[in-house]
Structure formats: C-alpha cells, structure tokens
C-alpha cells in the first residue's frame, strides 16, 4: 500500500518538471519565431517515434547512465563531482589508445583491456580531486572543474599530435580506429540499428552501484561519510580514504562512459564526441534523485533529448541549444520541488520534496577543510 504511493510521489515531481520545462521551452521557441509543433514533432520522431530513433536514443543513453551513476555515487559520498567531463575525456583517450595501439590480443580480452584502461585512467583522474580534498582540504568543485580544462587541453594536444591518426587521408584531430578485436558488438544484427551492448552494461552498472551502496561495508561507509562526516569519523571510518575511493570509483564510471562510445559507437575518438556529457550527467543524476535505478529513466530521457534534438534542428531549424535550456529548466524544477507544488497547487508529503541529492548538502561544506 505504502509502496505504490511512495513510487507515485517519487515520480510526480520529475514528471511534472519535465512537462513544465518542455512547455517553457515551447514558449521560448515561439517567442523567437520558431514553429513549436515542428520542433517537438522532430524531437519526438528523432527520439522515440521510430524503431531506428529508439535505437539511437539507447546509444545516447549509454554514456548518460555511466555519467549519471558517476555523479550520483559521488553525491552519496557527499562529493560534487563536476569533473565527469574531464574523466570521460581521459577515459575515452585511454580506451582508444589501448584499442588501436595494442595488437595481437584476441577479441574479448582486447575489448576488456581497452575498457579497463578507460575505467582505470578515468578513476585516477577522479582520484586526484578526492586525494586533494582529503589531504589538503581543496574543495572538489574547483579542482574537478580545473581538471576538466586540463583534460580538454591535453586531449586537444594529444589528438592533434602524438595520438593523431597517421593515415594521411584523415585531416581532423582524431585517433586511429580501434582494432576489430577491441570493438563492442552491436546488439541487433540489422546494421541500421546502432545500439550496442553498452546499454546492457549500463543496466548492469546500475545494479552494481546499487549493490555497492546498499549491500557492502564500503557502501555503508560511503553513505555515512556523505550524510555526516563527523559521525563517520567518530564511528571509526576513515573519511579521507573513503573520499578518495568514492572519487576514484566515480571517475572510473565516468571513464567508462567515454570508453563505451569509443569501442561501441565511433570506433575512434575525437574530442567533440563527448563534449557536454559531463554537465548533462549532473542533471541526469539529480533528476534520478541520486538513486542508481532513478538514473536509468533520467538517462533515457536525456538520451532521447540528445537523439531527438538533431532531428528537431533538421525539421524546424531550431538550434539544438534549446535542449540545453530545457535541461536547465528541468534541473531547476527538480531541485526546487516547492515550485512544482506551487505551480500545480499540489499537496505533497514531505518525502516527495526531499532534496534531489539525498541527505547531502554541498553548499554547507564549501571551503571547509576536513581535519
């Protein structure tokens, strides 16, 4: 009895947030002289309206699942990982490198090796801000943002020089294609469907993260540190160590987001492929209320928006950027459920208005060092 009511309450705010955001997006489109009908028709056709669009949506959903899980896991540990963008970038670079530079390894082993490289390098990149936070008190928000710019610049350097495809026919900055033995097979035999096994791995990853958080000692420590670092310290949990571990795992998940696009979708890496994934991932995690299973539908929504926006721009000439406005609006309404309640004159119980980040308040830890 209480079960389905809880589900309903958990759903009502995100659903109304999405609807409201799309409505405001429609007003913006109309005000700037676009055709709302054509725009949203394109958005629908390009996202869920046709079998091929659904396949494309699932392709775009995959990195959002991993990125969203990365942010959500960090949230649970009381950390705001804005560095997903950079971790995705270095993860994709590492996977691409192992994919094209290592040869002579047979199919599944090479693929696993390539994915592992993305996980490990993304994890190391994520561990840096964790380490700095734990041992110097540097706030992870600033360090992760700075590392984003570092990663993007390093990628731009590597892709334009040392890691650039040697093939003289390739003019733009991208890596050589990964070998056949490192490619993730498509899910369906028909080549017009690009959906690959990454989406299945994404579902598995959500289960693993849920299991880690709810069923293991480490997960308990993570949640305790996130909810109250002082209590965690008093209970004998090493806050510093947990911080580093959370950020490493979070970075690893982000690295996989980039890695799967390389081995499953493009088979090489160019920086533009993953641009913007990081900030979208934050919205995915918040919309999913930092719950591993909540991340799945919100990643699907963002995958649909990403996949549909291209068709929207083609049909209606409305710039793709409007989707970003809609996403920001969704985020506003999810973060401030009071607004939704007020707009729709709803009477909601307290749990429906719980903050999207769970028990964690980031603002309060601003600039304060762990001692």
């Amino acid at each position, binding site marked *: 009895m209480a079960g389905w009511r809880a589900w309903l309450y958990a759903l009502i705010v995100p659903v109304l947030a999405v609807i409201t955001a799309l409505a405001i997006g429609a007003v*913006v489109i109309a005000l*700037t*002289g*676009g055709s709302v009908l054509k725009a949203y028709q394109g958005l629908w056709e390009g996202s869920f309206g046709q079998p091929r669009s659904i396949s494309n949506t699932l392709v775009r959903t995959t990195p959002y699942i991993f990125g969203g899980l990365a942010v959500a896991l960090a949230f649970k540990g009381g950390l*705001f990982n*804005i560095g997903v963008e950079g971790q995705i970038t270095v993860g994709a670079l590492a996977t691409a490198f192992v994919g094209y530079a290592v040869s002579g390894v047979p199919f599944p082993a090479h693929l696993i090796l390539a994915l592992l490289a993305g996980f490990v390098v993304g994890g190391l990149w994520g561990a840096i801000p964790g380490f*700095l936070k734990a041992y*110097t*008190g*540097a*706030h992870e*928000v*600033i*360090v992760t*943002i*700075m*590392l*984003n*710019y*570092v990663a993007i*610049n*390093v990628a*731009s*350097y590597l892709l*334009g*020089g040392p890691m650039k495809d040697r093939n003289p026919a390739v003019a733009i900055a991208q890596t050589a294609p990964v070998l056949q033995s490192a490619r993730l097979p498509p899910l369906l035999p028909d080549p017009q469907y690009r959906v690959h096994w990454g989406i299945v791995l994404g579902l598995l990853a959500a289960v693993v993260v849920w299991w880690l958080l709810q069923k293991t000692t480490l997960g308990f420590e993570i949640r305790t540190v996130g909810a109250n670092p002082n209590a965690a310290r008093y209970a004998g949990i090493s806050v510093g160590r947990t911080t580093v571990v959370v950020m490493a795992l979070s970075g690893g998940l982000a690295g996989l987001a980039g890695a799967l696009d390389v081995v499953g979708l493009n088979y090489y890496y160019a920086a533009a492929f993953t641009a913007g994934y990081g*900030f979208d991932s*934050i*919205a995915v995690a*918040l919309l999913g209320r930092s719950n591993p299973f909540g991340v799945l539908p919100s990643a699907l929504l963002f995958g649909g928006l990403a996949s549909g926006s291209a068709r929207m721009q083609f049909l209606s000439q*409305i*710039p793709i*950027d*409007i*989707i*970003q*406005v*809609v*996403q*920001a*609006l969704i*985020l*506003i309404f999810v*973060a*401030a459920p*009071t*607004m939704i309640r007020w707009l729709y004159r709803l009477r909601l119980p307290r749990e429906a208005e719980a*903050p*999207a*980040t769970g028990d964690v*308040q*980031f*603002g*309060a*830890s*601003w*600039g*304060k*060092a762990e001692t």
Partner: protein
Amino acid sequence: MTLNAAAMARVGSTGQLRLWLQVAVWSSIGIVLLVLTGVQFGPAATLSILTVTITQATPITFGALTGICSERTGVVNIGIEGMLLTAAFFGFMVGVYTHNPLLALGAAIVSSALMALLHAVLSITFRVDQIISGTVINILAVGITGYLNRQLFTAGAPPGLAAFPRLNVPGLSDLPWIGPILFQQKPLALTAIVLVFVVHFTLFRTRWGLRTRAVGEHPLAADTVGVNVYRQRYINVVIGGAIAGLGGAFFTLESVPHFEPLMTNGIGFIGLAAMIVGKWTPFGAWGAALLFGVAEAIPVAMQIQGINVPYQLVSLLPYLLTIVVVAGVVGRATPPAADGQPYIRQ
C-alpha cells in the same frame, strides 16, 4: 572574558602574519620571475607581461568580487561563469544592434544581474542547494547564449559593434612603467581595480558591509538585532551579478569584439578560486587574480617572443596553478561561517 579576547587577538595576529608572509613569498616569486624575463628578453618583454597581466586579470577580478559580494552574505556562488557568459552575449547583442557601447554595457550588467536574481530566488527563497543552483545558472547560460547566438547570428553578426577604446589618462599614461601598465588600459580594466577598493571600503567601513558580514557569519544573530537577512542576501547576490556583468562585458566589448559560444572558458571558476585564495577579501582576491593573470600573460609573451611550445600545454598553466594554489592555501582559508547554508526564519 579578557582571556578569551586576548586569545582571539592572538589568533587574529598569527593569521594576519601568515597572510602577509604568503603575500611576501608570492610577490617575491613574481618579482624574481619578472627580473629573470627582463634579463633574458629585455625590459620590453617584462613590460608587456605586466601589461597583459593587468588586462587578463580584469575578468578574474570581477568574478572574484562577484563571489565576495555573494559569499560574504552567506550565499555560495559557483554560477559566476554563467553570469559572465550571459553578460558577454547580451552586451555583444545590444552592442551589435545599437552601436552604443554604454547601452551594451548596461545590457551586460542587467542580464547578469537577472541571472544572479534567479540564483537568489532558487537558493534563498526556495533553499535549493546553492552549489546546484549555481550549476543551473551555468547550464542555463550556455543554453540561452548558444541558442540566441545561433538563432540571431547564424550568418554571422552584423558589423559595427562599438567596442571600448584604449584609454589615455592625461598625465598619468606618460609615466614610465606605471603609465603603460596601468593607464593605457581599456576602461573596464581600470574599473576592476577601482572596484576592488570600493568593495573593500563598503565591506569593512560601512554599515551595509557590517550587516552583510553579520548575515554571512551568523544570520540568526543578525536577524535578532533587526537586520533583514533575506533582503541583505538578495541585494548582495544581485549586486554581485551586476559586477559579473562588467566582467562579461570585458570579453565582448573590451577584449575581442565578437562573441563565441563558451568563450568565458572557465574564467568565472578561476575568479572563484581567486576569491578563495584571497580569503574572501577584495585585496587578497585581487592579488590572486594578478597571479592568475601572470599565468595567462606568460603564454602570450612566449608567443610574441617566438618560443615554440604547444599552445594547449602552455594554456594549462592557469588551471594547474589554480589547483596548486587551492590545494596549498584553502586548508587555512576560512569562509564566512554561514556560507552555503540557507536561512530559515524562526
């Protein structure tokens, strides 16, 4: 009681001492570097590094002052980047259509202040986590500016944007060294420096500043003695937004006369770091902004000198420096006590 006061005074003076020690260390490092470049490449190189430093420090200084206004009153602001970007675009847009730099500047200030108002509404009234509210501002800014830029200027912006000219302050600009470094800058660069003094004075020498700091340290106490916490926070956050408007205008009306998506490139976050490094004080933040300015000036100077290093690697310098400085300093920096905490009136 007196014992307590004495203890506090002692803590204060060692903190002060440590701050000055840091200032001394950093500035001597800077002076040594400048002398070395002077010896290596001639005094003209040093002069150009210093001039470019002041220029590059401008938006960082504005960003840091935005953060100070907001955080001194207890509202964390990581939306500075988005405010800068918004202001850069709307300043550009109005400048292109009206050919009037002052109207353009006004548009930049108002648009950024409106973004700040949104941040205030979300974080003060709706008590959204302030870091998330700031993230919303950043994403929204990218979306709005990208959308309007493509919608309005797909075929390129019409020409005739009126940008700010270089100033020549009579008398002062002819001074050796100081003249070219400080008084041949463009107007916003000088405004930033003046604003550092203004914000310092307001914050530490006026009733408004005292109330602001009281609200940032202990809102309940401030409320008890009759300060309107919400009003104080709202106004400070919006004023901060207006200052970010000046910083945004720097990009399109003073630095380069055109708009590019994402052109603020992390400067807002670097400004935020400057605020932290400067321990939430205008002068400290300005010093840090100058440090980051040097980090941006050196690559420019290297290019002028024809030193061939991949630009992507040289341009890492400010970001790496930010990490090093934040990691080295922030452990000892103390934000306003109520920073980041929503206030709920009893």
